[in-house]
């Protein structure tokens, strides 16, 4: 009887368990809770791209991708639980995309100890750009401080290169995430001579009357927003209410999805948001996703998010992970790479226009390269604008580089402090 049970259990494990040789990628998603509306399209895009590679190409380098989804609810504790529960899946997870700055901060020491790379694309700890200190963390192609600089550069470009004496307000979520751009903006304020006003908003941001009354009284020329979730919708609605000019209102890329302008409707027309990838669904890869993923019933969600800002971002993250896997496979001459080899692939990733065009994503993201010293890419970004009539965000600028003089100084300073605190000897 005991032998029968063991045999049955073994057979079940062989049928149900993932093949050890698979390339395991974990999607720490949030499809429930207050931020689900943003988590769903990102996760759909992330998963659909890997499903496309499995269905169309038979995986990467002949190896299927074993996609493991774990629900975090955008909750830091649950995110850490997900990491611990899934890091050993299918012979070991290759990479994590935590999609939360809070979860990222908790995972940095764990992933570093475990030797599993994190990709925190456009979020997380900004100074992780310094790969000499943060060996296992990557935040290409752009980070928060790049974003702050992109916003100021855009205002500079709109005003003939002179913004001295101009009043710029930062409306931000009163959390570690929301405070990220402050130091950069302060440095840029000294450099360009604009007056910076800081307006923190309490979590979750449903009530912002005080901040917008202050904006109405003090009449800043521009407002920059660092929000997430309901804070974005309320801020845009309040800006509409006080008749703040929408084209002078710029959100970070996490404040620039269709969800954010929905509540304000047509009146949000002209609202701007930063972007580090292109928008819309007019790319050849989407035809393949439709054919191999959606029409064949393999889509991660309902298939109704394709082409939205956050779906594109999730798909872009998956594409960058897949390209890093390919790079690692080429470097190490094996299709069945491990997490350490994945890290090498990420550290040697080079995204060129030719490569993106060949993937069916021409001009989808900026060109960039990663190195041991630079885990954050080249700091290129663009500005998008909400076109209410068309019902979509559109890129209105080319990709341009952030102020590297200031960003490099801040990254060096912050990463050196982290290295000193944690006894890390920087080096490549």
């Amino acid at each position, binding site marked *: 009887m005991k032998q029968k049970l063991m045999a049955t259990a073994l057979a079940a494990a062989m049928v149900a368990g993932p093949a050890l040789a698979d390339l395991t990628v974990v999607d720490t998603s949030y*499809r*429930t*809770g*207050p*931020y*689900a*509306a943003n988590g*769903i399209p990102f996760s759909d895009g992330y998963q659909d791209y890997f499903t496309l590679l499995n269905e169309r190409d038979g995986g990467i380098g002949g190896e299927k991708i074993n996609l493991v989804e774990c629900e975090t609810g955008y909750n830091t504790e649950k995110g850490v639980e997900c990491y611990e529960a899934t890091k050993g899946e299918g012979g070991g997870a290759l990479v994590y995309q935590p999609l939360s700055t809070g979860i990222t901060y908790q995972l940095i020491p764990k992933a570093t100890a475990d030797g599993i790379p994190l990709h925190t694309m456009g979020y997380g700890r900004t100074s992780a750009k310094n790969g000499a200190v943060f060996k296992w963390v990557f935040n290409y192609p752009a980070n928060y401080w790049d974003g702050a600089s992109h916003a100021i550069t855009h205002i500079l470009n709109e005003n003939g290169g002179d913004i001295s004496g101009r009043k710029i307000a930062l409306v931000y979520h*009163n959390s570690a995430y929301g405070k990220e751009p402050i130091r950069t903006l302060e440095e840029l304020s000294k450099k360009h001579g604009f007056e910076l006003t*800081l*307006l*923190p*908003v*309490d*979590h*979750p941001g*449903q*009530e912002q*009357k*005080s901040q917008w*009354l202050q904006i*109405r*009284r003090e009449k800043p020329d521009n407002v920059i927003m660092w929000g997430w*979730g*309901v804070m974005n*919708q*309320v801020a845009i*609605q309040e800006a*509409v*209410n*006080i*008749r703040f000019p929408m084209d002078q209102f710029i959100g970070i890329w996490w404040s620039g999805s269709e*969800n954010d302008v*929905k*509540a304000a*409707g047509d009146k949000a027309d002209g609202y701007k948001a930063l972007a580090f990838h292109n928008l819309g669904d007019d790319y050849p890869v989407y035809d393949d996703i439709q054919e191999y993923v959606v029409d064949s*019933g393999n889509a991660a969600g*309902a298939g109704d998010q394709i082409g939205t800002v956050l779906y594109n971002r999730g798909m872009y993250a998956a594409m960058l992970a897949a390209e890093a896997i390919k790079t690692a496979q080429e470097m190490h001459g094996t299709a069945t790479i491990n997490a350490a080899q994945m890290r090498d692939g990420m550290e040697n990733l080079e995204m060129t226009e030719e490569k993106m065009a060949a993937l069916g994503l021409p001009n989808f993201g900026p060109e960039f390269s990663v190195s041991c010293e630079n885990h954050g890419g080249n700091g290129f970004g663009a500005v998008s604008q909400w076109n209410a009539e068309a019902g979509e965000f559109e890129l209105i600028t080319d990709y341009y580089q952030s102020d590297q003089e200031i960003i490099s100084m801040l990254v060096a300073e912050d990463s050196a402090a982290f290295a000193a605190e944690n006894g890390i000897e920087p080096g490549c």
Partner: protein
Amino acid sequence: MPDQLIFAMEVFLNGLMAGVLYALVALGFVLIFKASGIFNFAQGVLALFAALTLVGIMDGQVPFSHLINAVFGTDIHHFGWHVPALAAILLTMVVMVALAWAVNHFIFRHLVGQEPIILFMATIGLAYFLEGFGDIMWGADIKKLDVGLPQGINTVIDEVTYGIFGYGFFIDNLDLWATFVAALLVIALVIFAQYSKHGRAMRAVADDHQAALSVGVSLNFIWVMVWSLAGFVALVAGIMWGTKSGVQFSLSLIALKALPVLMLGGFTSIPGAIVGGLIIGVGEKLFEFAIGPMVGGATENWFAYVLALLFLVFRPQGLFGEKIIERV
């Protein structure tokens, strides 16, 4: 008149309006606590569920469409009709009454006589269930809610105050409507509680369950009625907050704004919820205006909870709450 004083007047008025919105949420807590002694952790989720249902009905959305499509391989999402706001509000109320019946029938009927902490924990479970149920039923996307309430600056107030002070006050039309509706709601609830047969029965149940039962009051009926009323108040709160931010799952977090109001006004007083809301609204806005810039801002939540804490220390029953004296 100094500019700062004029600005403070504008902040004061906006604080009153914000307070009304807080009070709308607090009212639902008070109704249920008053009648059953249950601190309803699910009140915020009730507002979310009501607003989701309202938008779903208005937009002709097929409930559980994602589930139906996943199970049966169909591709249905909408019925193809649009229901007028008033009819949708009435239909939503029918859903909320059905929910009240279900809550009582499946949960609280079985918990009569249990300790308050057990009842409170049951409402925590209810909150999680309802949030997931609402997600499966209506989807997690953000929905625009437009029941025809005007939004944006009230130009009359703007012009009048500009004429007087040389500075036009900003008052949101939606907040004015919320104040009007809240006033009507409170008057109706007070009249109902004081002068109607069922209202008196509700108060009798609140005073003593067993005594009310002994004179023929149906506990089940009263609890269903009270949860229905709380559902109605939640719907009103959901409409007001949902119009501002879109209907989304963060709506359930508005309960956080009601807690200090309840501590201040008392858990058992309908006027207390209103007065508490106004004090919190005005207090936090004026504090943010006057002190916020000196300490880095974002003081509103802090102020509300510190004020509530002070009341807990010096007047634990709140401004209008009943002082419970237990003889031993």
